[in-house]
């Protein structure tokens, strides 16, 4: 499977152009991270990719086939989308909620069969949330909700998974769990495209990164080449230091990002502490 995006543009009916010529390519087994400041068009880009919004110009090719020529249900069998904020008012049971992912596979007049519930159950097991299957979805914690949403996306049996900031509202443990699951899924051959606010996550988990600012990609490619101090400064408009840390577990190195301002503030704070100790 390969998804290729060529010169994608999108403007809202009010005329505001949000995505201004984005091109990239992802293949099976890759995690593609879209990184960029708030309001740069990441979410809009994902919505264009999954077909919620219709791009005003440009094309998306799924294995060489123009995505907009594919019927909606067929497209939903290939691409699953996880929204950033999920607001369900009705307290659906988790299993009933997850089985909704079967919608593109079932005709409009049918209801899910035992087999569909089985697929939903398997998806819940895959993300380790099977024990939640009978709880009401609205009563779950943020981390559990994210897992259940991933399970619903897997129930669609897609080849491409689009996630809008899947880790932004999760604690450390749940971030690790979600990113671990995404890693496992890509090893199985899925394409994962996700937006994130954590540059470090892009270093740690993605195979390729698109650094976005004001509707355009400043750079696309391997994390090491894209996420340089220079590029990050251009995107976020603050000075950033990229640190390389030796892995405590093996001979490899881990890169991470810290804004220069934070390091400076921390130094002042330490100095005061030292001064206080001295007196």
């Amino acid at each position, binding site marked *: 499977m390969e998804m290729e995006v060529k010169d994608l543009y999108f403007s809202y009916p009010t005329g505001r152009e949000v995505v201004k010529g984005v091109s990239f390519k992802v293949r099976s087994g890759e995690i593609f991270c879209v990184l960029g400041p708030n309001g740069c068009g990441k979410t809009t880009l994902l919505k264009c990719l999954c077909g919620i919004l219709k791009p005003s110009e440009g094309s998306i090719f799924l294995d060489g086939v123009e995505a907009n020529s594919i019927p*909606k249900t067929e497209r939903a069998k290939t691409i699953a989308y996880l929204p950033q904020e999920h607001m369900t008012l*009705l307290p659906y049971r988790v299993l*009933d909620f997850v089985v909704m992912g079967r919608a593109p596979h079932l005709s409009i007049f049918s209801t899910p069969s035992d087999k569909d519930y089985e697929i939903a159950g398997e998806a819940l097991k895959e993300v380790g949330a099977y024990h939640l299957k009978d709880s009401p979805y*609205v009563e779950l914690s943020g981390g559990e909700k994210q897992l259940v949403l991933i399970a619903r996306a897997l129930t669609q049996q897609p080849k491409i998974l689009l996630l809008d900031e899947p880790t932004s509202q999760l604690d450390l443990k749940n971030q690790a769990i979600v990113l671990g699951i995404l890693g496992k899924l890509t090893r199985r051959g899925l394409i994962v495209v996700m937006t994130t606010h954590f540059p470090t996550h892009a270093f740690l988990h993605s195979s390729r990164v698109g650094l976005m600012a004001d509707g355009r990609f400043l750079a696309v490619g391997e994390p090491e080449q894209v996420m340089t101090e220079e590029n990050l400064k251009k995107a976020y408009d603050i000075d950033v230091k990229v640190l390389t840390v030796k892995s405590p577990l093996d001979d490899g190195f881990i890169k991470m990002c810290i804004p220069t301002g934070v390091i400076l503030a921390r130094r002042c704070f330490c100095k005061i502490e030292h001064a206080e100790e001295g007196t």
Partner: protein
Amino acid sequence: MSQRYKRILEKVRGGKASTVVLTLLPILFFLVSLFIGRYQISPDTVILTLISKILPMLHSHNIPKQIEITIIQVRLPRAIAAALVGATLALSGTSFQALFRNPLVSSQILGVASGAGFGAALALLLSGDLVIVQISAFGFGIAAVAISYAISKIHKETPVLTLVLAGMVVGALFSSLTSLVKYVADPYERLPSIVFWLMGSLSGVSFKELSWSFIPMIASCIILVMIRWRMNALSLGEEEAKALGVDVEKMRMLVISCCTLMTSAAVAIAGVVGWVGLVIPHVCRMLVGPDHKILVPASISIGAAYILAVDSLARAASTVEIPLGVLTAIIGAPFFFYLLRRERLGWRWK
């Protein structure tokens, strides 16, 4: 919600027990409504009369003509009408609450009842012929929703909020037009019939009226039952439904068309019967949960049972018949308050 209550619900939901109860409940109230009436007839006579009509070879003699007419010509069409009206109003309420993702929406949200009310009032003012009144009510009910939908189309897509606001505007417009008709109507002859019609009643329903109105009601019910599972996806909101491959625009049109057709037909034969389309969906959700796979059949069953029961009460409670619409509001409003108080609505507000 108390733990005990939760445990009881878990047992009821999805179990065979709920299927049995939901099937038997409307049948029970259907029979009850045949037994009750001004003219005293014992239940066994009623059953014998029914048997003699359905299977004449089994039992054909010694039933007085008077009793046969009362049961077959008066009570039977009325009971069928009550069941149909209850089922359609409750079902359209359930569908609209999913479509608009709002627990305060009822079957009247797009102005069906106001439009139909105006249509009936106008026909009562001008002619008074019952068939014309019904056709006019049916037509204006559909027209009101069509206008709401057309207004909401001023934006290229149809966001749900515009649609609801358009429905409110159209509803208010037709309500004031109805007031105008009442104002000009002759206060001794025409006005009472208009007022009485608007209160909603099933008295005097005959097979003749049912013969045309049951077609849109049954057809719409069947379609909505068939697409019921898609309502789950629809209730997640437009974007998520789209991401699940649902053609939201088409689905919305289909649900609105079905609901409008059957509600207009229901209002045409029963008048304005409020609160059913708001309260019954909540009751059903409380009983069987929010999954539309079960919720839709449950709404049909509980809605039918409810109106059958209330109509029996309307006939039996006093010597003068109480208008059905008045009684559903008197029962419905406090009950809704009870649901609110117990936080049993089953919706999560953010």
